[in-house]
């Protein structure tokens, strides 16, 4: 009996403590007094300095934060991993809607920036010295975080797209890396005719690269400026977009590419086994695949990378999938301090080098992009290929930036359904885009946008 009572008391105490912990987060940890150093994933060494709270999920974030706290006496970072991607966004979205509980600085994927800037959850950094770091980045990277005159984040890494391929499959079936999408299809047909594996994959669960491929053909699905946030132009069913989606729908219909969801165990297993001759992906993909176990054992030495196939080889276009930024939330009590952290956190040479050598990120900072070590790096995953010099750096430099949907989560969810319908053979690419256009127009009107 006594024991049970004790357990109950301890249990109640735990509940109270965790409630108190939730309450403690309310201040956002902006000033030194409210940030509880015990909740930081990396201990804060200089306890007298003001503390800025950060949510981020990169695997080498521990090193990055340690580097930052070591080299700064004026401000310290209290870092929390609040989940990767969607998990963190759900948490951040809740904090934004509640008006409390958000960190001072948050890591966002580039295409999520407008989603939160529209809700006035992010601080415009132009007033806090963003222009001083603009020169560190390429024009496309900067365009991605800007909307009109406003800047809502500091770029960290990017995802210039390229075509990874299986050298063993290409050799076995006598295929050379395609440079245009027509050649890509022809290679797929040759593979199928010879009884080979699929040429690639058209997943429903990640629509972002499909949007990028539409942009490669000149589509501009979203026109939008945060200076006039209720004006919006949606052009998802343009002829350029339809050409791209009909092309992929055709590949699916003819059984030249698979329809497996990506980032799943099934997809990884297939990629390692050589079920897909190519993987249309971004510069971070080799690191992702390595982490998932590709390129090791029997799979070693099978991978190489070539530039993304083009629609018009005379006018090549570079597109981007993924990449992240550090943004300052409007709940930060001291935005100036938070902006300083956003600009300096992943900017020192040690952290950047650690990021790209461990294949975690493809940095966008010019100090890395122009360093000889980075340019001449021989990628272990690509069997010594100088992938940065040959493929990724030119792609990153040619990238001109894009405008993402101001309601990206809803848009991607709807696009996923449309791609699933294509993959199930229910719709053509054009039909799917017409439906998507109608749905997005209806949603935008409902949300109070004026459509141009």
């Amino acid at each position, binding site marked *: 009996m006594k024991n049970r009572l004790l357990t109950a008391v301890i249990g109640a105490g735990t509940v109270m403590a965790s409630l108190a912990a939730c309450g403690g987060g309310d201040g956002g940890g902006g000033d030194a007094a409210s940030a509880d150093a015990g909740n930081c994933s990396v201990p804060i060494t200089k306890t007298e300095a003001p503390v800025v709270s950060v949510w981020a999920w990169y695997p080498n974030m521990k090193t990055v934060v340690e580097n930052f706290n070591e080299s700064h006496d004026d401000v310290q970072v209290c870092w929390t991993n609040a989940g990767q991607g*969607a998990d963190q*966004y*759900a948490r951040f*979205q*809740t904090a*934004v*809607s509640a008006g409390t509980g958000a960190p001072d600085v948050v890591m966002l994927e580039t295409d999520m920036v407008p989603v939160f800037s*529209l*809700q006035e959850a992010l601080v415009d950094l132009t007033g806090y010295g963003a222009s001083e770091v603009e020169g560190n980045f390429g024009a496309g990277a900067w365009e991605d975080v800007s909307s009109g005159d406003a800047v809502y984040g500091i770029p960290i890494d990017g995802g210039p797209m390229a075509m990874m391929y299986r050298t063993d499959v290409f050799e076995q079936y006598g295929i050379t890396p395609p440079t245009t999408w027509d050649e890509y299809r022809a290679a797929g047909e040759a593979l199928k005719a010879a009884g080979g594996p699929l040429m690639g994959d058209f*997943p*429903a*669960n990640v629509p972002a690269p499909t949007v990028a491929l539409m942009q490669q053909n000149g589509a501009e699905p979203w026109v939008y400026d945060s200076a006039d*946030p*209720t004006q*919006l132009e949606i052009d998802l069913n343009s002829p350029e977009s339809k050409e791209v989606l009909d092309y992929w729908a055709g590949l699916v219909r003819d059984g030249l590419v698979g*329809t*497996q*969801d990506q*980032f*799943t*165990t*099934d997809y990884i*297993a*297939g990629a390692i086994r050589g079920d897909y001759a190519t993987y249309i992906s971004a510069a971070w993909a080799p690191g992702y695949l390595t982490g998932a176990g590709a390129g090791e054992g029997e799979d070693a030495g099978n991978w190489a990378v070539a530039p993304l196939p083009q629609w018009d080889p005379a006018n090549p276009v570079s597109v981007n999938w993924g990449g992240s930024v550090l943004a300052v939330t409007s709940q930060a009590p001291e935005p100036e301090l938070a902006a300083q952290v956003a600009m300096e956190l992943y900017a020192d040479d040690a952290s950047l080098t650690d990021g790209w050598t461990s294949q975690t990120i493809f940095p966008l900072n010019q100090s890395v992009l122009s360093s000889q070590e980075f340019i001449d790096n021989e990628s272990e995953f690509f069997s010594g290929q100088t992938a940065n010099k040959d493929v990724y750096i030119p792609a990153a430099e040619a990238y001109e930036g894009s405008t993402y949907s*101001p*309601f990206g*989560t*809803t848009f991607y*969810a709807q696009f*996923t*359904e449309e*791609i*699933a319908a294509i*993959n*199930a053979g229910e719709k053509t690419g054009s039909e799917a885009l017409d439906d998507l256009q109608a749905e997005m127009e209806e949603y935008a009107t*409902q*949300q*109070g*946008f004026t459509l141009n």
Partner: protein
Amino acid sequence: MATLDTAPRPQAPAAHPAPARSRRRRRGRTQGLIGWAFLAPFAVVFLVFLVAPLLYAFYLSLFSKGLATGERFAGLDNYTRAFTDPAFLNGVWFVVRFSLVVIPVQILVALAAALVLDSVTSRFARFSRLMIFVPYAIPAVIGAVIWGFLYSPNFGPLEQLFGDGAPFLLSPDNLFYGFTNVVTWQWAGYYMIIIYAALQGIDPAVYEAARIDGAGSWQIATRIKIPMISSALILILVFSLIGTLQFFTEPQVLTPISNGAISTDITPNVYAFNLAFRFAQFNYASAISFALGFVVFIGVYVFLFLTRKRGGFLK
């Protein structure tokens, strides 16, 4: 302290004709207070974690907030929108169809297992009972993950049985059966235990009498056991009706491996979750939740009305 001792005791002498009653009443009041004190911890938790959030959610559901507009009072607009929203209505239609298939399947499996285990009394029966119950002990999330692997076209047993032509149970056409299987696996054991407990409560003398009258095992099962446990059957019918209408965990967990077949609005609960935590529409999500609650209430009420003679446990 001393004053307490010296102070005159209040109303101790029997000045009134009914002192016993007043004392009893006072004792009753004290007991009432003690009762309330025991109830207080529960009452606080109940009010803070159930009633207050419900009221707040209802309050939220009366407002509407567009991404490009401010928050405004919308009255019942969100509810009119919900009941004309194809995403919500399709979700409701899906769970209704699903209920019509899953509930009978679950209950038949549970009933058959319970009847068999009730007639067999060996160590093997005890072992089987545990094994049938085990899926319920596995958290639904983990169960769904395991089934995700079993359904996998790359690793699953289906692939090894059928080769490349193996059916993918999470494809748009097969989703319904894939879910039916997972949910039945998860819940049949739990319902089996409830039915089994009810069967154990029947006096064996009844069977003896039936045997003397010449009834066989089948007749005993259908004419005696099942009618005598009908209130337990109604109970699990209500449980499974509520559970199925609120179907959430399995679609949520299996979505990432379904190649897009499971949409964000497949069931009303999944839809409400996505609206709130992914699409930033807390107001409309609250309205959807209440609308779903309304549908469940109507469903259960109609069901209990139809079976009112048997459903004694709720009265």
